């Protein structure tokens, strides 16, 4: 079997083996906006163990990057765009996120 064929099969096997995420209705959605003043809301809450959907809107004039070391996510967002970033099954605690392109803009997710 050729190298590429083997890699494709491995990828397909992985995708099939992975359980599909829950339906959108089960998600805990958190609308977030990034603007010149930073994140709004700057602090937000969510219950533990659910899938969280950050609905992040870029209200600034330049590109922003929604990033978090604590959540292991990074996503570049163009001005005016709204993107969905999913995080699931978090343990209780505080998780910080920030705009990687303007690091003074920071926010916190509190999971209870």
């Amino acid at each position, binding site marked *: 079997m050729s190298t590429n064929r083997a890699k494709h099969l491995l990828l397909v096997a992985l995708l099939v083996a992975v359980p599909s995420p829950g339906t959108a209705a089960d998600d805990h959605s958190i609308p977030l906006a990034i603007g010149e003043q930073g994140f709004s809301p700057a602090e937000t809450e969510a219950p533990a163990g659910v899938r969280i959907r950050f609905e992040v809107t870029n209200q600034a004039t*330049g590109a922003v990057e929604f990033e978090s070391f604590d959540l*292991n996510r990074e996503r570049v967002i163009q001005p005016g765009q709204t993107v969905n970033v999913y995080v699931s099954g978090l343990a209780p605690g505080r998780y910080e996120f920030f705009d990687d392109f*303007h690091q003074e803009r920071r926010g916190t997710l509190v999971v209870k």
Partner: protein
Amino acid sequence: MIETLLIVWRESLEAALIVGILLTYLARDGQRTGMRYVWAGSAAAVLAAVGCAAASDSALRHLDPDTQEVIQAGILFLATGVLTWMALWMRRNAKALRGNLHRGADRALATGRLLGLATIAFVAVFRECMETVLFLWGVALERADTAGPMLVGAGLAGVGLAIATAWAFFCGFALLDLRTFFRVTGMLLLLVAAGLLTSGVNKLIGLGYLSPLVPQIWNTGWLVPDGSPVGTVLGALMGYRSRPSLLEVIVFVAYFPPVLWMFHHAGASERQVPRGALQRSAPSPSPPRGRSPEAWSSR
């Protein structure tokens, strides 16, 4: 201004490291031609990225953001494939060079392999370049009062810093002996490929297409924080994250067994072809069309 420089430095670092690995290997191997192809691929990528960003700045905004992210994940997976293939080719090629065989088939394929080198440099640089150009574009838009040249200067300085970082990183490699050097750079390339694969999977998890299995299997932030200098280099080089999901860890680890098997196999197949094969076989008056010299001698 400083932030722009730092951001561009970080974004460019990954591309600089990948290109740096290729160039260091080729320089040590004495392959000047290969190095030229890597430079050409990188230059083409910079031009393509600037051209793409300029031409489609507005078009990109109309493209669904999730589609953009999936395309980026796809580019990461493509880069994984090309990097793996190149690492395998380098392994095979090193032995062939030492064996000093002149095989017609090899020469015919040589151009294809050189293009492979250019492709990998292109893919590595293009991705980071697009992000960087779009970022700088955005910064220029929001700071309309700042002089354009200063921003471009900060961006270029960031790229220069990335190249300098990669250069310093690889300077230490000159101290290694040849055998160790090739081993280490080959391994590095595989680690980079595994990191790119994991980053692509991370993107798909963030999009909600894949389940992380367990969201944060461990936290090594106490040892190597993500934002620290070591963390940044490790992150750029092999996709290190302090709080990875189980799926990402599995993907990273699972990459190696099949690839290392192919590595070993690539070395073994070289030994099967006897060196004297070309001299031993007596060429027939009318050789069959389309068959290489090795096929004549193999029974």
